[in-house]
């Protein structure tokens, strides 16, 4: 762990807000990147990032300092993002891939990065929440099964099993959506 992090965490625990501000500034980009995988809406994503740092502040005492601080933050972020999906499902706000018109027989290589991310995001949104979480971290963040297990608090075996089943389900969905015809 960075010494600067440790000093700022100790200072934050003493109530020095400047120290916590430094921690926020240091990691907000990484956390924004993670939360963007949970919501691609600017306002919602910003709200989620704020929630991560607020919750982290009030849980700061529980940070053991064993792993990097950013890992601890992303664990909180993953939990908040997952909860957000749960609430979103209750409001039934996910948009099916069929509504996305920009996929008509496109070359993947010619696709804009954010367009590719949008398609993948919508495709994964069709999955069950737990499957979606594992594949989101795997595909978007390029996490290994070990890293995912650490983030979500599961065993590596469970993550591997979940990822295998999720990929099988994703394949079925992608075939149903004629992804092969839409993208080449």
């Amino acid at each position, binding site marked *: 762990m960075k010494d600067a992090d440790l000093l700022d965490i100790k200072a934050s625990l003493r109530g020095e*807000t400047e120290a*916590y*501000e430094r921690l*926020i*500034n240091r990691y*907000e*980009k990484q956390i*924004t*990147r993670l939360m*963007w995988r949970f919501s691609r809406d*600017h306002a919602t*994503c*910003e709200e989620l*990032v*704020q929630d991560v*740092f*607020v919750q982290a*502040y*009030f849980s700061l005492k529980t940070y053991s300092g064993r792993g990097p601080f950013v890992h601890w933050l992303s664990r909180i972020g993953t939990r908040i993002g997952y909860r957000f999906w749960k609430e979103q499902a209750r409001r039934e706000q996910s948009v099916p891939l069929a509504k996305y018109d920009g996929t008509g027989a496109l070359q*993947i*290589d010619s*696709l804009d*990065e*954010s367009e*590719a*991310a949008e*398609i*993948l*995001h919508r*495709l994964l949104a069709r999955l069950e929440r737990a499957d979606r979480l594992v594949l989101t971290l795997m*595909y*978007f*963040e*390029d996490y290994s099964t070990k890293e995912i297990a650490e983030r979500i608090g599961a065993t590596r075996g469970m993550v591997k099993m979940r990822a295998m089943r999720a*990929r099988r389900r*994703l*394949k079925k969905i*992608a*075939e149903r959506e004629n*992804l*092969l015809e839409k*993208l*080449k």
Partner: protein
Amino acid sequence: MNVLDIVTKLARRAQKESVPYFDVSDKVLWKIRLQQEEALNFVFFDVFAGVSALAALIMALLSVAAWHYMANPIAEYFAPLQEVPLW
């Protein structure tokens, strides 16, 4: 090409996506202050509620005798006299 290969290719492109940047520090610190103030208000409310409950309990104990009298005001006239040693 397998449909999952397409997904993997999409993922590789998606990883390079530039993500929006938000400066959240001011809002986060404001939210933290707000929650701390709320927590303080709760503590004050809890203390006030505790003191009120204690006062009510004391009053209840003091009023037990009065209650007995109200329930049966002439009981004292029929109750056997207590023997009081005069010396």
